[in-house]
């Protein structure tokens, strides 16, 4: 499937006026006819948009997973829905890192709690001292 919005230089949530203008401006006659048929009828546009969203999601997933040149994508929607392979963003590794962080924080916690208690006691004592030595109003 082609990304008609991209080919018309529009954003997918463009309103009808912008759409009509872009279609009128389009110089490719076949693309113009297709866009008018598909996007200017509400029921068709709704269905097209749903599939457009799914394909954009799949394109994003494929870019993150390094599947932009896999056989089923290459021959089909790759031209319009492929994103450039971005920085390797493995969710799994990120999850593992966060688990490690959480585990380390968990192991450190008793010490930190002790420090907090000392700090709290010190403030209490300071408050009491101030109360005693400041002259009453």
């Amino acid at each position, binding site marked *: 499937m082609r990304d008609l919005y991209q080919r018309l230089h529009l954003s997918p949530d463009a309103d009808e006026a912008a759409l009509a203008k872009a279609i009128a401006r389009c110089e490719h006659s076949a693309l113009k006819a297709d866009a008018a048929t598909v996007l200017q009828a509400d029921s068709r546009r709704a269905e097209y948009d749903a599939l457009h969203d799914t394909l954009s999601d799949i394109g994003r997933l494929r870019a993150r*997973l390094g599947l932009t040149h896999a056989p089923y994508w290459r021959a089909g929607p790759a031209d319009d829905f492929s994103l450039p392979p971005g920085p390797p963003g493995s969710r*799994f590794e990120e999850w593992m890192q966060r688990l490690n962080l959480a585990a380390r924080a968990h192991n450190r916690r008793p010490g930190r709690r002790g420090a907090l208690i000392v700090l709290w006691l010190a403030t209490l004592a300071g408050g009491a001292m101030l109360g005693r030595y400041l002259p009453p109003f």
Partner: protein
Amino acid sequence: MTAARFSTFELLLLQSRDQADSAALLLLAWVLTQQGPVGEAERAQLVSLTGAFRHGHALEPLLEIAASQDLGAIQLAAEVLQKELHGDTARAFLRLAVTLAAEHGEPTLANHHVLRFLADLLGVSPPEFAELYASQVGRALREPGDPSRQDYWQRREQRARDRRRETAGEEKRQQYTQEQADKRDRAETESPRATRTEARRQAREERAEAKRQRQQEKEQAKARQQAERDAEKRRQQARREAEKQRQRAEREQARRRREDERAQRRGGHREQRRDDESAHRAHERPAAPDPRIRSALTVLGLEPGASRGEIRKAYRRLAQAHHPDRFHQEGEAIVASASRRFQRIRRAYDFLMKVS
């Protein structure tokens, strides 16, 4: 803590007794939501299909995540599956996904793409997947339609009209026979004069009906001719474009061949040295700093830091494999997609030759 909180799906994975099964369940729920609204029947189908799973947590939160299209969770599930499933287990999972999507008729277009994504994810090649699909649901795997084109909607709406007319025709016929029977009954009891006027009226009605039908057919024929003419025009245009692209590609190839010959005449040893040099340079900085270089290398299927010689070799191999002329027999759409692939490969090669 600065890191983000754990998401619902991450917590579920931590609870799960079998992470691969949890991840598979989320992706199956995703397939299910692409098929339409998930009701009690669909839920029951998913539960019965995944009876052997050992995740040991509730299904509801997974269905919610799938319904909200949470890409982060889906990506994590896909990575878990990619790590855990190989060979037969991967194929078993794909069978489940195919059953969910295609058991009650053709899968939705979205699911056509989701299933192909899952096949690519698990490293199942297209011929293998087509075979698996056919053996699972007893129909061949069809190419998904293209709703960005006019003729997709024309064909689909024509089909819907035909179906409506068929059912309407069926009803009319039933009504008609019923009326006839009624009339016969009445005629038997009424006087002969009444029968005659009744017969005349009937004949008139039949004539009007026949006229209406003829008119309808004429309109249909006109619409069909118009559609055919449009399609022919589009086909011709596509052919012209493909031809233009092919000529451009040929010119480009001829130019490159001439350049290569010139370079060879200038002396093989110099080229050899250049290859060595660039390999040396690549060694010095193994990670290509420019993301454009990296993506161009990915198009040619190379690792960062490939040498000029490797790039040229990869380009020759890919250009041969994807040259549009090879697909001449297989129809315009395939030729057009091949020429797009070919252009992408060529652009990547030109770019790499310019910068390295």
